[in-house]
């Protein structure tokens, strides 16, 4: 098998805008799937609404393109009914953390053995560039002309409330670390979340001063630094991985812990 076999290349070019970061995530996901022997008979993709949700249509797997925000209930049910399957959720920050926020809280708590790959472009791209749950304070968007008023949601902090979870922060520029994070997450026994900073040049980047998608990638290159090994907490713009205590696949979250950082 080859990476290309994981993709429906006959449907290319994709609907994603030139310069979009999603393809960079799909490429690394396909690479890791090939390395791990994941194929259409042992793996299911669950995607949400937003540009990222189209990924399921471009991969040679069976996939469920859910309602907006509903990836996690669907994915968790599939895993519960068919524990032998690898279940991978791919979605954007708005789908995962805003409209799907309540599901995210409780999936984290229940610790299902699923992997979430979040294309975090800090914007509602498909609907034209409205502020989302991860938009930095002060960012001018078409729904926050005076700058986004509220702090972005703390995905790392949420995921780490489960002491048995896996959280990685990476960017689409850092292909090696992203591949490693996706691979480790897919092998993690329990809830794993890969938070990928990714550019939306058309409906965000250009409005906030970037001339091109490459400028955004270069921004990731210079702004994001690797966290010291063994970090229990990642600062903003740090690349790294925060792991809890792994428990057997499908097992319950470790009892007696209310906070993975404690």
């Amino acid at each position, binding site marked *: 098998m080859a990476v290309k076999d994981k993709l429906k290349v006959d449907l290319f070019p994709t609907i994603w805008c030139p310069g979009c970061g999603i393809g960079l995530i799909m490429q690394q996901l396909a690479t890791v799937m090939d390395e791990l022997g994941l194929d*259409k008979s042992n793996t299911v993709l*669950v995607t949400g609404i937003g540009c990222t949700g189209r990924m399921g249509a471009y991969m040679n797997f*069976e996939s469920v393109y859910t309602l907006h925000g509903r990836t996690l*209930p669907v994915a968790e*049910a599939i895993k519960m009914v068919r524990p032998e*399957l690898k279940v991978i959720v791919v979605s954007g920050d708005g789908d995962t953390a805003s409209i799907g926020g309540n599901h995210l809280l409780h999936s984290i708590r229940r610790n299902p053995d699923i992997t979430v790959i979040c294309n975090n472009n800090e914007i509602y791209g498909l609907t034209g560039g409205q502020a989302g749950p991860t938009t930095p304070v002060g960012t001018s968007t078409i729904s926050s002309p005076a700058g986004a008023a509220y702090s972005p949601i703390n995905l790392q902090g949420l995921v780490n409330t489960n002491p048995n979870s896996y959280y990685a922060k990476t960017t689409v520029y850092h292909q090696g670390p992203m591949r490693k994070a996706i691979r480790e997450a897919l092998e993690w026994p329990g809830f794993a979340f890969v938070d990928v900073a990714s550019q939306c040049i058309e409906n965000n980047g250009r409005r906030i001063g970037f001339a091109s998608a490459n400028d955004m990638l270069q921004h990731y290159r210079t702004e994001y630094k690797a966290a010291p090994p063994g970090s229990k907490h990642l600062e903003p713009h740090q690349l790294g991985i925060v792991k809890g205590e792994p428990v057997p696949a499908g097992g319950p979250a470790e009892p007696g812990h209310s906070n993975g950082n404690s």
Partner: protein
Amino acid sequence: MTKRLVQGNEAVLLGAVKAGATFFAGYPISPSSEILAQASVYAASHPEFRFLQEEDEIASANAILGGSLAGAKSFTATSGPGFSLMQEAIGYGHKVGIPCVIVNVMRVGPGTGMPTMPGQGDLNQARYGSTGDYTSIVFYPSTVTECYEYTIHAFNAAEESRSPVILMSDAFLGHLNEVADLGPIEIPIVPRTLEPLASGSTRLFSGVATYPDGEPATADSDEFIRQYYEGRDHRLAVAEKYAFYEYGWNKDADTLVVAFGITRRIAQPLAPHFALFRPIRIWPTLDKELTEIAGRYEKIIVIEGSDGQYANVVERMLLRRVERVPLLGGRMSIEAIREGLARIGMLPAEPASSGSEFPAGSRAPAGSRSVG
């Protein structure tokens, strides 16, 4: 199984298990909570039966869609605002074509309303609750034994129609305990019709309008219309196999009472004075059957636990005026029915004795009950 007291909500769970259900996801809400609780008890001793208590009804409804795609006959149970929260997922299930069963034990709404009181105000929601056009199959039993039977039919119809099928109940029926002997009931079980996920193919299950290859068809009206009629025609054809109703009481009377669910039981003392038509398949409506029967009667009265939801349907179907007896605020009693009949000047001259108002045993009273 032998004769014993069975609760309406318990009968639903037993029917689901009999139908082959192996996945339940739900969220507690009165008056449906016993189904959730008993599903958890059943799961504890039957590892092949998966149970998940969800964070809300949105998750519950989406989870049974995922569970069904994964290969399990799946169901959830809810009431009132919980049913409203599920509407988005129900529409998705219709669009994608996912068999599953949603049990709605009705209480008095809107809003939080009267959580423990019976109502029948979700008929329109069961038909039109989600966005867009779709074809709902909805059953509403009247007895505890029927809760068992029509839960099985609901699963069968879901498999055949590849759509979410709704089983209606109400706070009265769900909490009713009746002597029942469910063991001898034999209803053929329709096996799974949908190849489970990870079949080795590369299907895309999409709530977005798509072509068969997965490419978006979001601006192709012809493709949408083609898929829409294909789904609608299939579900209507399946529904025809489940055209359940009861026609009985005093067929020689000049007035036909239309009543369903628990209301038909409450209206039992009217038996000497009226003919009865009880739709069990609430949606799609039984146009052929009701039109034919209604033609024999001078007047029609719809007695229901809402302010005319089904009366409006009947009036539009028959293109003639029908009388209405709405039972509101949980006042679902023979006294309330008599008051309603008096208001429209149709109270029978000699009220029936208040002796045996409910039929003995748990089976529906004798009548020309059709099962398709």
